[in-house]
């Protein structure tokens, strides 16, 4: 790689993420795709912690640490303010965690998506409230251990992509740090679209998933290759495209890498496998529903 072809580095040394944090890696990749001409909103979550306490700033872009449940309307306000000032070429990006997206921020995200506000929203999903120390969220998968689901989560993971697709927003995509090229390509694609663009970015959390620090990207790859977290995009809420045909490995490959699943018996693993197979078949069906 030559210096000129090296991606733009927006992230500075000294951020406050835990070692091996999937969110830090994911944010870095998103910025490599977007560059420095961007205004960024972060909300309370690991994302905000990583961005650094005053007077440090981990990212070399204008950034605003807004309140927990309002990543989307905050970004929408900035986006519209720039428009009335005649600035039309600077994207506004919002980073929120899974709690800030699936739970407390869902209403305001829905409002922005409904208005098709001009913003890119990236949900950094580490599948629990990790910033406050590993509590269950509606993004936590079934059976996963958290500090508030000590016997395993009893609920199914909320299907945020379906919810966003139902808003018929111009672009929604899943991505993960195990597939950097796919992630960067899709963010670049989203940058050229106007309206509400949504990313569901799986961000492995060594601290909360109870695994070794170096495993983040590997676990992310396993999530995709077992169909636990397929890579796909949805255009206009209708047109589904699977971005990576997985090897459909047994889900155990993914589960056994993480301490949060170590209490599972064969019955639970089989239940996860059954549900994963069903969802994967369903996703394939969705790609055939509407002519592109």
């Amino acid at each position, binding site marked *: 790689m030559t210096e000129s072809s090296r991606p733009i580095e927006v992230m500075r040394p000294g951020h406050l993420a835990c070692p091996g944090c999937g969110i830090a890696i994911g944010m870095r990749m998103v910025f490599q795709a977007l560059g*420095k*001409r*961007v*205004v960024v*909103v972060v909300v309370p979550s690991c994302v*905000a*912690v990583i*961005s*650094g*306490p*005053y*007077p*440090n*700033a981990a*990212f*070399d*872009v*204008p*950034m*605003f*640490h*807004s*309140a927990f*449940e*309002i990543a*989307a*309307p*905050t*970004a*929408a*306000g*900035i986006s*519209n*303010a*720039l*428009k*009335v*000032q005649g600035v039309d070429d*600077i994207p506004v990006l919002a980073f929120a965690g899974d709690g800030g997206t699936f739970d407390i921020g869902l*209403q*305001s995200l*829905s*409002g922005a998506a*409904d*208005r098709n*506000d001009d913003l890119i929203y990236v949900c950094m999903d580490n599948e629990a409230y990790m910033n406050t120390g590993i509590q269950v969220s509606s993004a936590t998968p079934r059976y996963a251990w958290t500090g508030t689901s000590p016997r395993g989560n009893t609920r199914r993971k909320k299907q945020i992509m379906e919810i966003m697709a139902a808003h018929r927003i111009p672009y929604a995509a899943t991505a993960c740090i195990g597939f950097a090229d796919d992630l960067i390509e899709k963010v670049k694609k989203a940058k050229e679209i106007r309206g509400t663009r949504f990313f569901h970015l799986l961000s492995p959390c060594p601290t909360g998933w109870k695994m070794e620090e170096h495993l983040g990207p590997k676990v992310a790859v396993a999530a995709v290759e077992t169909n636990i977290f397929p890579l796909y995009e949805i255009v206009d809420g209708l047109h589904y495209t699977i971005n990576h045909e997985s090897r459909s490995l047994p889900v155990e490959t993914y589960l056994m890498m993480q301490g949060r699943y170590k209490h599972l018996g064969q019955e639970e693993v089989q239940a996860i496998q059954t549900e994963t197979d069903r969802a994967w078949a369903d996703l394939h069906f969705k790609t055939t529903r509407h002519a592109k």
Partner: protein
Amino acid sequence: MKKFISGNHAVAEAVRLCRTQIVAAYPITPQTAIYEKLSDWEAVDELGGIMMRMESEHSAMAACLSASLAGARTFTATSSQGLALMHEMLHFASGCRAPVVMACVNRTLAAPWAFWSDQTDSLSQRDTGWIQIYCEDGQESLDSVIQAFRIAEQVLLPCMVVLEGNFISHFMEPIEVPEKSLVDRFLPPVNIPKRFDINNPGFAVPVVNQMQYRGYRRLSQEAMAFSLKVIEDVDRSFAKIFGRGYGVVDAVGTQDADLVLVTSATITSTARVALARLRQKGYKVGLVKIRVFRPFPTQALRLILDKVPKIAVIDRNISLGREGIFCSELKASLTHSALRHQIQGYLAGIGGTDVDPELIERIALDAVNRKQALDGPIWMTEEE
């Protein structure tokens, strides 16, 4: 030009005259007519800004404050439950020094459900760091919104213009709607810091330590104290251009008064009628209207009230477990007077009940004849 319009319509006229760039709103009675009127104008390209139709008041304030930090002139309006839902964002807006202007149309807070005028909604936001201006009628509401933009943008604090539900919001009055050229002369184009500059990136509102937090609180408190002078200056220059001014407080007949009635908002208009009658009957009664509640105009009030032996404060609001909120505030601000005042609080108009001149006369007579003030408030009702 004089128009026969409601208070809500008057507020909307002011928002349009001020070339507001972002309006983010959500419907709630009795504010909704402001949102509708601005939408009407947007539909025919007469608003001049962008209307954001939000899914909640909480998000409305989120959009306003972030747009404001991006350098835009922003406005929203709400009432009651909507204001309560916004509470978190009110602290946030003042904490990040976003000069958002909001009209709060007073309405009772549930439970129980009701739709009438009661100031407890806006007064519950006392400690959020917003400038608060309480209006007596539709004209003052229109004028105060125009003033609010200039005040807020000068001191970089958000400003709430408070008008009473129904009594102002829905009452039709002849209201002078100024020429746009005059408003342009009074209110310069928005020129507030743009916090999101890609050529000079910074991290707005990061996590701070204890000393830094305290430091920001002190700065905000200084800005609040300073804003009192700005509010007075802005009102004076408003009066020069438009021929109308309001002051931070308004005093009538207080020079020789043995008793001064202290009011806010629409009860003031009624009290002006009662005052004339009381004077005719020979009572040396005066009247003070508190227009600016935050920052609290302690000095202005002391200049008027320091030598007045008896004071009757009339509140259309209550801090449960204490008394009317203006009453508590006034008592605290007169602590250092040389004279030991007899200050009695009266609750009148709670829940939007009617306060007529006769009721205010009864309050005055009670205060005149009272030898000793009670620690708690006296509830006033229509029938006696």
